[in-house]
């Protein structure tokens, strides 16, 4: 990790970016040769793991260059034009090549490239032109420096620079900086930008290009951790697979996240259910559920009423209507003789009761899962505290027991495993909430129970006083290994279940 980050600190995008560099020209895109892999792929992957690699900014730059070179050699166009084309096709080689062979001129036109593509003939120059007046600033003094693309929409150098600076710095545009000429769609390419823009603007432009390269490529994703500059490459997962895989990746910075949706590690729950669950938790719909479970509406004025005593003879405070809490019928129909409602066969009463019962059951079910989910989330939020305390404990252990730093690392490891397991457990509850009840689900719940028990035991060990803890090293290590094992079993089984389509959901998965 530290090695890698040193590399990037030294790396300067602006100075090293060079289109004339041919060293990558020959290498095929997708070939890993020559790229430094920060995290070596493990040889044998578990069912819940996906192959991925971490790319540094330099790696991304190289990939970009080699892709440009490759396409340029196939199409016989200049690198600048190919860059514009690739940006237009969002770095999708296949689509570009297919459409280009069908209609080269049309595609060039659409992408904003002059059909007359010859970098030798095309000479971008900043020069004065006789009798020129800039259409932007209306300046016409002699000797005014001007610039124009192939379209010959000529403007003065200052206005052009101003325009491009605004596009890049203020609007963050890199893909589609068009000629400022009226309804001219010609794109100012890399060469033009380099010629006109100031150095800092040009460097910003290159950074933006890098960004679009990652954003447009479905096999690349920036690590979402704050200030992390790595991108993850994951080839085996496409959007349509996300119903059956939870592609969890780990960045060189240590952050674990889902490649599919970019959210923090949510194994074993699939992305679509994660989204549903988060939305459900955020929605006020559950408050509404509580209201419908605990209150009724006055059948006359619809004011919401919560029953606060045992008597079923209700009188609405708002409209003074008298009704029976049990059957929601008018109290007058009950007569004066009996106080217990016996009108169970009455249709509206039955319906009302059904609705109430259903609503209550669904609420209780939700709360069951939510409480457990929230509990683990809460514990996960305390992880930072826990970790700090662990560190403190470790220093204490070192001084009281005379153990070396290496020897107390088992606590740090136990803490990390604990955090990870809580994260997993949290999402098992969201997942279980959407599962149909069947034998498979019982198996899942058994695994969940085992993991939870193990986690709680380890957690308990962890909070033991420091003197005892020193003597418990073996127990802690064993427990850590066991907990980790339980987590892997659960993930392995869920992942296989996803792959084999063993899980049935209560909601529709689109």
């Amino acid at each position: 990790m530290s090695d890698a980050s040193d590399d990037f600190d030294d790396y300067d995008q602006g100075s090293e970016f060079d289109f004339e560099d041919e060293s990558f020209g020959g290498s095929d895109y997708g070939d890993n040769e020559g790229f430094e892999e920060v995290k070596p792929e493990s040889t044998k992957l578990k069912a819940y793991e996906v192959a991925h690699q971490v790319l540094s900014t330099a790696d991304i730059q190289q990939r970009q260059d080699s892709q440009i070179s490759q396409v340029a050699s196939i199409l016989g166009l200049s690198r600048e034009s190919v860059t514009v084309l690739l940006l237009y096709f969002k770095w999708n080689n296949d689509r570009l090549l297919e459409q280009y062979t069908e209609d080269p001129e049309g595609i060039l036109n659409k992408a904003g490239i002059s059909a007359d593509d010859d970098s030798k003939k095309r000479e971008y120059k900043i020069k004065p032109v006789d009798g020129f007046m800039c259409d932007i600033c209306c300046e016409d003094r002699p000797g005014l420096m001007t610039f124009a693309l192939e379209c010959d929409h000529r403007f003065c150098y200052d206005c052009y620079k101003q325009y491009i600076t605004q596009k890049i710095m203020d609007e963050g545009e890199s893909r589609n900086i068009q000629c400022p000429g009226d309804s001219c769609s010609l794109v100012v390419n890399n060469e033009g930008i380099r010629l006109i823009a100031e150095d800092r603007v040009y460097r910003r432009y290159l950074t933006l290009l890098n960004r679009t390269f990652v954003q447009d490529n479905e096999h690349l994703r920036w690590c979402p951790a704050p200030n992390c500059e790595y991108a993850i490459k994951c080839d085996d997962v496409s959007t349509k697979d996300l119903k059956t895989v939870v592609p969890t990746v780990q960045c060189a910075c240590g952050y674990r996240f889902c490649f599919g949706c970019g959210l923090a590690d949510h194994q074993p729950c699939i992305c679509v259910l994660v989204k549903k669950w988060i939305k459900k938790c955020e929605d006020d719909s559950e408050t509404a559920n509580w209201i419908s479970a605990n209150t009724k509406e006055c059948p006359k004025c619809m004011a919401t009423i919560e029953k606060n005593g045992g008597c079923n003879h209700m009188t609405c405070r708002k409209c003074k209507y008298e009704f029976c809490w049990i059957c929601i019928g008018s109290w007058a129909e009950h007569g004066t003789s009996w106080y217990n409602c016996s009108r169970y066969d009455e249709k509206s009463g039955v319906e009302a009761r059904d609705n109430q019962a259903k609503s209550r059951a669904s609420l209780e079910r939700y709360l069951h899962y939510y409480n457990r989910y929230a509990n683990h989330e809460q514990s996960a939020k305390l992880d930072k505290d826990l970790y700090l305390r662990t560190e403190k404990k470790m220093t204490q252990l070192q001084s009281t027991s005379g153990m070396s730093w290496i020897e107390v690392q088992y606590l740090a490891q136990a803490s990390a495993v604990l955090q990870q397991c809580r994260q997993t457990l949290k999402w098992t509850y969201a997942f279980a909430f959407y599962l149909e009840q069947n034998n498979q689900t019982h198996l899942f719940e058994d695994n969940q129970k085992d993991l939870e028990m193990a986690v709680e035991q380890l957690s308990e060990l962890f909070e033991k006083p420091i003197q005892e803890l020193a003597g418990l090293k073996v127990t802690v290590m064993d427990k850590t290994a066991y907990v980790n094992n339980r987590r892997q079993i659960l993930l392995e089984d869920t992942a296989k279940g996803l792959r084999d389509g063993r899980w049935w959901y209560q909601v529709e998965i689109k």
Partner: protein
Amino acid sequence: MYKSQNSRTNTAVRRLMTEYKQLINEAPDGISAGPIDEDNFFEWECLIQGPEDTPFEGGVFPATLTFPKDYPLSPPTMKFTCDMFHPNVYKDGTVCISILHAPGDDPNMYESASERWSPIQSVEKILISVMSMLAEPNDESGANIDACKVWRNDRAEYNRIVKANVRKTLGL
């Protein structure tokens, strides 16, 4: 910094002067525009004729154009100074039209960059665009929700309100 700001302002004034001259010499049909007071070239007053075959036909609508100091890099803002009932005109008269949006700032995200402001656009083009906006409101980027609703659901009522405004603005 001061100097560059100053030259920016000079650019804007020079450009506005040129546009003013063109508008006086070759005023397009149905448009009149110029600075309210030449001491301040950044505030313009303009008149637009209602396009034919629309409820706006026969009307003349006043508006102000306020130019930023970095015009023509940034677009001016336009505000009608009469009663204007139109889906793309805010209730305070401010016009919401793609050509008046800088390409980077697009609250609605559905205008393609080519329709938006660029330094090569001009007062004349803005006013012509606004004229065609009067004829064909853009349902998607509504500025006046009431007008949107009426325009969509009750065209007769929309026409009635617009025609009433035409008369009101001309003092009838």
